């Protein structure tokens, strides 16, 4: 920006407070987590890793972290499988009711989470499977699938349909067509979809809260319940942890995925920070 005209300079000036407004509340948890104090305070009184060490020494917090990672793993695997299959299955097809099918796939993005949470709660209660991390992971998979579907669909837009035909004419079966034609094209979409699925699951609180049991409490739920009674810096540590994970995911996306043009039409980077 060598030739900045006054208008551009004004825009830059105006965007700085907006940027700070967006980033500072999220970033502030990091110094708070490293605070040398027994309570959450700001500004920090001194730098110390005591709270971080305390977090990893506390079984209740580490098991919450493990539960979150497990549910995220379930959500990523199932979400990627379902979302990618839906995107490939619907690619290049036109049939009556197609819009309804797409709407159904995307519905979990729009339906209020609390409605889904109640529905899943009743559903899993009636199945009698509440009490493990599996139902939470499955519920997260449902809200993660549309993200994978959208990112995969975006990368498929760059697929030349003649490639499928040419692979078929050369003797490829459907498995080879997937491996040699679809997979190279959708891989960036799958990676960003997986990242979205991961961050959606890690961040999800409402459904996890509905389905929580002592043996299945995710990190956000643990944070929410603890903050009502104590102001332990471990909450800040877990927040900082989530911020770090989200930032790493974002960086990964920028470095390895966004470089590819096929995902240029991707979703806005709505990697959500913990509340």
């Amino acid at each position: 920006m060598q030739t900045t005209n006054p208008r551009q300079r004004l825009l830059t000036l105006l965007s700085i407070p907006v940027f700070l407004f967006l980033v500072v509340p999220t970033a502030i948890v990091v110094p708070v987590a490293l605070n040398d104090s027994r309570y959450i305070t700001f500004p920090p009184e001194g730098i110390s890793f005591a709270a971080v060490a305390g977090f990893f020494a506390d079984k209740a917090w580490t098991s919450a972290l493990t539960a979150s990672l497990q549910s995220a793993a379930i959500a990523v695997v199932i979400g990627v499988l379902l979302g990618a299959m839906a995107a490939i299955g619907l690619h290049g097809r036109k049939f009556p009711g197609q819009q309804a099918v797409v709407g159904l796939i995307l519905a979990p993005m729009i339906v209020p989470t609390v409605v889904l949470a109640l529905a899943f709660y009743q559903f899993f209660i009636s199945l009698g499977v509440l009490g493990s991390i599996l139902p939470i992971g499955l519920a997260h998979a449902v809200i993660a699938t549309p993200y994978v579907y959208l990112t995969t669909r975006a990368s498929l837009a760059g697929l030349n349909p003649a490639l499928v035909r040419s692979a078929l004419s050369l003797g490829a079966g459907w498995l080879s067509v997937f491996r040699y034609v679809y997979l190279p094209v959708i891989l960036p979409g799958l990676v960003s979809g997986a990242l979205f699925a991961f961050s959606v699951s890690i961040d999800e609180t409402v459904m996890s809260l509905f389905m929580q049991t002592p043996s299945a409490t995710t990190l956000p739920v643990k944070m929410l319940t603890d903050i009502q009674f104590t102001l332990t810096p471990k909450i800040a540590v877990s927040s900082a942890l989530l911020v770090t994970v989200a930032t790493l995911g974002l960086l990964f996306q920028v470095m390895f995925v966004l470089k590819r043009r096929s995902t240029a039409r991707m979703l806005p980077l709505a990697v959500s920070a913990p509340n």
Partner: protein
Amino acid sequence: MTTSVISAAANSRTTASAQGSIELRQVRKTYGDVVAVDELDLVVEPGEFVTLLGPSGSGKTTTMMMVAGFEEHTSGSVLIDGKPVDALPPRDRNLGVVFQNYALFPHMTARENVEFALRMRKVPKAERRQRAETALDRVGLGTMGGRKPRQLSGGQQQRVALARALVFNPAALLLDEPMAALDKRLREHMQEEIKTLQKSLGISVLFVTHDQDEAMAMSDRIVVMKDGRIVQSGPPEEVYNHPLTDWVASFLGDTNLIPCTVLERKDGEALVDLGGLGIGRVRDRGVTGEKYAVSIRPEHLKFSSEASPDNCGPATLVSSTNLGATVRHRLTAGGHELQVRELSSDASGRPASGAELFVAWEPDKAQLLVLEQ
């Protein structure tokens, strides 16, 4: 980029496809109420180069896609090497297909692209590498095997697509407008290369194009299609010189269409009344219709200094345009507008516009046809 590279390399081929006939029997394809292809009968003999020529929407690409197995025909039967393949998926039809935009796998190198069909056929690695190299040599790309498609020019991509379609010794080759994306010079060059390659391999080719020059240059036989039906089929010269309808005549280049009245038809010749151009003898292939016309290509109409009773009429020169190699003359004769084309080297000393002269033709170069439009 020389033709000789290819012809020399092609001689080294060991397995020739003596087989490779394609046959369509009463093939019909409908999309809902729309008939895309109707009652199509077509045979490609082993080693024959057959071109489906027609405007867009004539059903030529649909026909090819039904042969390849990408489109299912509504009724009728497709046979390859004499065996029905109606129930076979594309992968089992053993046909090499070159698509309009080549459809090379973008993430694979040229060699990997060529190897693909062999990989699908579980050919051992060493053998498939060697065969891919041979195939690339054959199209003059022996040194380009390590490049990705985006690092190759359009013509080179086209050659890779050809090598890929030929490497597994398919029964026949299907080419879907393979030269549409190339510029004119490269297109003409590739036409010769493909033709040379096809001849030396002895492979049957079904070729789809809307470009009549391309069809003329490459085909053993041209099948002209319109509205899902074959309107005429024959060797290029025959279709060009002896079109059966005015539509075929105009689709295959410039022509003079002179409405006429048939006076007498006998032994492949007809005596016609051409109005102001007098009475003339023309070729007749026995087509019948309501209205008739005579088609004479501009290069088959000659100037004549004196009148003769047959195949000759008075005309007035309107204008002459030098097109470089040829000169185009516009004339009026008995209320008809005529075009005469002759080589620039023959055109010197022609009278200026407005001159009264005679035009003449050989009966064999004038064709009686049905006026449809």
